[in-house]
């Protein structure tokens, strides 16, 4: 049964999102203990010590989670996400509302984890530079529907853009990538438009 399979893999996945918090009144150690138990970690104390060292939590591990700075909370969130050494990691806008320095640190941590463990990371993000940096394959969605897919470089090249952010804007404004046959002329067409340009004006532009 699918539901049984889902339950079996849940202990081997984890999730992080700035829109979901850990209980603020619990200390960092208490929160990690609860989640380590929920994920069935064999040696809870050892795992928390490992995470405290790895993510530099030791100075505030016995403080209330609600009293931490944004950067410290981010590290605690990561500790919870890595508590079971997940083979699949689901990330929902993991760097939203972080300062550029912390956001860079977080992205690097995910990249290192992926390189070290071979874990699969499913990242939902509107930050296209983050996606370019972390993703091997990108699925572009518009209004809940998949509208394009490919490696970041492949998408950028197909849309004739210089980065994924411009591809995102093209897709958001319903400017589709050309098919392989049309590619030559349409890429030329797309290159005429600037990302800030209004959609209607784009549509009315002479071809």
């Amino acid at each position, binding site marked *: 049964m699918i539901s049984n399979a889902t339950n079996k893999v849940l*202990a081997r996945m984890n999730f992080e999102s700035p829109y*979901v*918090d850990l*209980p603020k009144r619990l200390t960092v150690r208490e929160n990690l203990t609860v989640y380590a*138990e929920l994920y*069935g970690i064999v040696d809870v104390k050892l795992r928390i010590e490992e995470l405290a060292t790895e993510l530099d939590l030791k100075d505030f591990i016995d403080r209330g989670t609600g009293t931490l700075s944004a950067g410290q909370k981010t590290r605690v969130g990561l500790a919870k996400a890595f508590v079971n*050494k997940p*083979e699949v990691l*689901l990330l929902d806008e993991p760097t939203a509302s972080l300062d550029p320095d912390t956001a860079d640190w977080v992205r690097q941590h995910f990249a290192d984890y992926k390189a070290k463990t071979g874990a699969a990371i499913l990242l939902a993000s509107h930050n296209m530079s983050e996606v370019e940096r972390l993703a091997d394959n990108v699925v572009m969605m518009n209004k809940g529907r998949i509208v394009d897919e490919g490696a970041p470089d492949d998408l950028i090249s197909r849309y004739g853009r210089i980065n994924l952010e411009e591809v995102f804007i093209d897709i958001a404004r319903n400017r589709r990538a050309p098919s392989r046959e049309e590619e030559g002329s349409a890429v030329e067409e797309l290159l005429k438009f600037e990302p800030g340009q209004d959609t209607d004006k784009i549509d009315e532009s002479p071809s």
Partner: protein
Amino acid sequence: MSIPNQPDNIRPDVAFSVRRIGAMVRRYIYLIRSSWPRIVSMFYWPTLQILIWGFIQMYLIENSSFFAAAAGVLLGAVLLWDVMFRGQLGFSLSFFEEIWSRNLGHLLVSPLRMSEFILALMVMSSLRTLIAVIPAAIIAYLIFDFSIISLGFVLAAFLISLLTFGWAIGLIVAGLALRYGQSAEELAWALLFALAPIAAIYYPVAILPDWLEGVAYALPLAHVFEGLRAVIIDGAIRWDHLAWSFGLNAVYISLGVAAFLFFYEQARERGMLLQLGE
């Protein structure tokens, strides 16, 4: 579907885990331990209630031969009503703690099963009820010379019956909160009181209009409180009322679980689960 081998760092998955229930109970104990207002609020109202009703009972005993002969009938009712109210509140508030702290999303993607989550809430409801009612029961004994223990083993049956009904209501309230958001929190406080007039807590079901008696007997509460009066006034155990209360509870707890799962599925399909919060 084939799944790669289980890594060494995590225990083999089991369909029902006491460890996961324990983790959730531990989470709520950590929370209560960290907040003295939460601790005080648990026994504050039951203590006040028993003091007020205890003095009312003293006054009535001095002026009424019925209450002189049936001392304890009011205090017993107050204590048992509190068991159910605190039981329901303990269940609902523990659940609401997850919404208030915006932690529900983390729990729902963890290996915690819904059945384990519900059982953890039931354990916490029982613990919170004990913390609430034991001081009140001690006061009833020390000041008003009423021992709830004197009800004998039937007390355990009453407690189980009342807690079970409290959980059934708690499940419905939690389900409504999943589906309709935090505004359903008001129901946690209000829903049970809507049943109080027909629960026959302080007066017998026979006092109610004929058409309401049937409605009252459709609730386990009326059977418990009729049973309580039978023990205190007549010294008799009404097995028929006990049987009805347990039978009805089986129906209500099943309805509670079904309602909770129904609202959970609806909330999940509508993508509302991660949006719950303050």
